[in-house]
């Protein structure tokens, strides 16, 4: 490559133990692993040997952007975090999490595609990256502070244009679901990477970059991005297409405004900024971004039409709910774990008489003060909070109670449900759509939502306005058979869409682009409801942006092959470091065997059929070129993907045939 376009060209490495800073070229990774999640997986394979725990100084905390980060490509302002994740249960393993905001773009503008952190600082420090200058600085003034005030102090110190990612008090105390947060609500949430930062004594990373991202074909890229922006009406939330779900009185009352959660995102999504909401538990006006799972804090209005059990109908109200959103972000706690896992679990335990109080305070999810106390106890590991800070799954082990309730809420790996029609009772997914979710859950290393958003979520959210015939027609075009989207063939042809979306998930996390918006499949703007611009199909948008930005001579097929390579490398890492086999994959089955939460087209609550699912798993491994008995990649498959070194290493260790 003559001139690198898209990528910045360097990856920064900081050893916190001795403060050593070095750089390496990105070029060695890009053609095979693209960026983001792909490069993360490669670095993890090379640098994280078996036996490394999340809080081991030798654990890597890897931040990588991709060729589109910092560019005009819609939704591209995203960064991917990887490393051994403490939230994973029963034992931490390598996985990933993404974060929006402007932090990733700023890293690119400073001249780096990624940042590898290793070692452990002797005392609290933060990293200050100002273009070529990189300093490990004393964090005395910000250690102990919440995420908002830590960022404010860093901006006062280094200028208002500084973008910082930091941990709250939760990360400092190694809460296993502590987040890394930037701005008011952008977080690498799942995985507990905030605690990894805390274990390294690293409070924050502050960046100011004054460079740019070179674009190979500027005019073509500009016009393409603008055309895609036009096409991105409300992403898949077709129902809020006209009003974007804005509550009119919130505009005047609380200063609501539309606010894009990621740099360069022009989507009219349901992400809002509230400029002044009065506090209920603590006085004073609160402000911040309000998106994703946070709108569940106030509680769903009764009578809840969603779910068999009204799980989220606590009576908190908007103002207190918004305050809980702000407080959890300030402490740096993972909101998904709190709302979809911890709190419903505590409520179940109370209702079933297993646990009625928390250190003398009655468990009362209708009282915002209870929530605030809960957050504080978890964050500072006070009393019962010390066990809860270990995450729902570990807490039940420590307390020796509530395991059965956890089973209903947590799908696998220590992660509560997500787009699966079972533990997640807010996102409406019914049989047979969640069979694909089950396959995705079975074969991933975390909750597979960047895959799930685009099969389970797309079908479920478009279902009210598009017919199953339309889904079948588009399913044939995308995955090769109408059966992929036919409710009357529940267990047939489901491995194909699963794999398709898993690869597209890698692509979204590698370029990167928003995992909710891409790939573009369904549309209200075309007569056949298939997204396209001119003669460019919606699912090809990512490739075309990639090609125009980087100018790399790589076909569309090759790009998807690179995604398959990443997926296989992640699996190989699972095999080498954690002995992953088919047995682990099958552990998901009982969770899905439970009756579903939402009525689907059959008007009957369904559960997973074990035998049929096992056959589906066979089909999945066969299609992947993995061994059906062990669920491990074959050496032929790894070699076919150019992972010869990986194949040899696994073979030498006797891990694959």
């Amino acid at each position, binding site marked *: 490559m003559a001139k690198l376009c898209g990528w910045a060209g360097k990856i920064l490495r900081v050893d916190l133990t001795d403060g050593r800073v070095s750089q390496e070229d990105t070029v060695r990774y890009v053609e095979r692993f693209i960026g983001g999640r792909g490069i993360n997986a490669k670095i993890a394979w090379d640098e994280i040997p078996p036996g490394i725990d999340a809080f081991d100084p030798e654990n890597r905390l890897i931040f990588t952007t991709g060729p589109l980060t*910092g*560019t*005009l490509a819609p939704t591209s*302002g995203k960064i991917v975090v990887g490393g051994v994740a403490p939230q994973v249960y029963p034992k931490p393993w390598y996985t990933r999490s993404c974060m929006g905001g*402007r932090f990733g*773009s700023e890293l690119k*503008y400073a001249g780096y595609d990624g940042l590898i952190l290793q070692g452990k600082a002797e005392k609290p420090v933060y990293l200050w990256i100002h273009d070529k200058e990189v300093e490990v600085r004393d964090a005395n003034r910000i250690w102990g502070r919440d995420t*908002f005030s830590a*960022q*404010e102090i860093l*901006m006062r110190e280094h200028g*208002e244009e500084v973008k910082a990612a930091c941990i709250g008090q939760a990360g400092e105390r190694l809460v296993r679901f502590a987040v890394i947060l930037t*701005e*008011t609500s952008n977080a690498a949430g799942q995985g507990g990477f905030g605690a990894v930062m805390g274990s390294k004594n690293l409070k924050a990373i502050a960046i100011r970059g*004054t*460079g*740019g*991202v*070179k*674009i190979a074909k*500027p005019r073509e*890229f*500009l016009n393409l*991005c*603008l055309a895609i*922006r036009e096409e991105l009406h409300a992403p898949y939330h077709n129902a809020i297409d006209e009003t974007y779900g804005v509550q009119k009185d919130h505009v005047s009352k609380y*200063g609501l*405004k*539309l*606010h*894009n959660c990621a*740099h*360069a*995102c*022009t*989507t*009219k999504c349901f992400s809002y*900024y*509230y*400029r002044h909401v009065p506090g209920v538990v603590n006085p004073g006006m609160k*402000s*911040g*971004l309000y998106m994703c799972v946070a709108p569940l804090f106030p509680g769903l209005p009764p009578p809840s039409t969603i779910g068999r059990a009204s799980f989220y109908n606590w009576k908190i109200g908007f103002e207190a709910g918004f305050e809980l959103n702000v407080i959890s972000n300030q402490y740096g706690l993972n909101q998904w774990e709190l709302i979809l896992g911890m709190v419903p679990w505590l409520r179940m335990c109370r209702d079933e008489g297993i646990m009625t109080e928390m250190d003398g305070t009655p468990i009362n999810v209708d009282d915002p003060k209870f929530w605030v106390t809960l957050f504080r106890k978890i964050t500072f590991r006070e009393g019962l909070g010390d066990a809860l800070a270990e995450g729902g799954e570990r807490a039940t082990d420590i307390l020796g109670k509530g395991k059965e309730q956890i089973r209903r809420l947590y799908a696998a790996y220590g992660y509560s449900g997500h787009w699966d029609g079972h533990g997640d009772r807010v996102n409406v997914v019914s049989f047979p759509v969640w069979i694909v979710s089950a396959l995705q859950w079975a074969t991933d290393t975390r909750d597979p939502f960047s895959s799930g958003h685009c099969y389970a979520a797309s079908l479920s959210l478009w279902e009210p306005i598009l017919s199953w015939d339309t889904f079948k027609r588009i399913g044939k075009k995308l995955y090769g058979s109408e059966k992929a989207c036919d409710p009357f063939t529940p267990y047939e042809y489901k491995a194909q869409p699963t794999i398709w979306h898993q690869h597209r998930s890698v692509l979204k996390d590698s370029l990167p682009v928003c995992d909710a918006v891409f790939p573009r499949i369904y549309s209200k703007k075309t007569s056949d409801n298939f997204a396209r611009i001119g003669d460019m199909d919606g699912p090809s948008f990512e490739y075309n942006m990639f090609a125009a930005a980087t100018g790399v001579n790589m076909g569309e097929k090759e790009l998807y092959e690179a995604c398959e390579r990443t997926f296989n490398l992640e699996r190989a890492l699972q095999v080498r470091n954690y002995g992953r086999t088919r047995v682990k994959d099958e552990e998901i089955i009982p969770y899905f065997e439970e009756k579903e939460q939402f009525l689907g087209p059959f008007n009957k609550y369904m559960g997973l059929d074990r035998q049929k699912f096992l056959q589906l798993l066979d089909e999945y491994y066969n299609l992947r070129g993995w061994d059906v008995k062990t669920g491990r990649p074959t050496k032929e498959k790894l070699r076919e993907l150019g992972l010869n070194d990986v194949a040899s290493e696994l073979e030498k260790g006797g891990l694959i045939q």
Partner: protein
Amino acid sequence: MVNRKIWVVPTMRGVIVPDPNSCSGCGGCELVCSLFHEGECNPTLARIHVSREVFTGENTPEVCKQCPCPECLSACPVEAIKIDEKTGAIVIVEEDCTGCEKCMAACLFNEKKTILRFNPEKNVAIKCDLCGGEPQCVRVCPHGALKYVKMEEA
């Protein structure tokens, strides 16, 4: 829309009017601007700047007001700043600019050096030229926070 009077003078024929209240802070305007003018995505080379207050949610796009009595133009010692015949925009002719930065100091609104910037690679000052009549930032803005107001319509 910003509700205020706009002075109409013969030289001023169009201006970009920001509405901070509608700005979502996505930064698309900065990116498209630098891409259009410099061939790269680089907010520090953009002729428009969004000042973001992360913790209050206020986003304020800042762009040249195409002043009727442009101080930058008067300050230029080599007459590198001209008035575009088609759009009435006050533009810097890069070939003539010596990079003395006097225009940047003269501008009344350039305290933060975001209206008139300096491109160190080319050693020239840069500013909004209304993209020859089709401002790209206005084209990209998803929430109508930037309007291109032409005097004949005003």
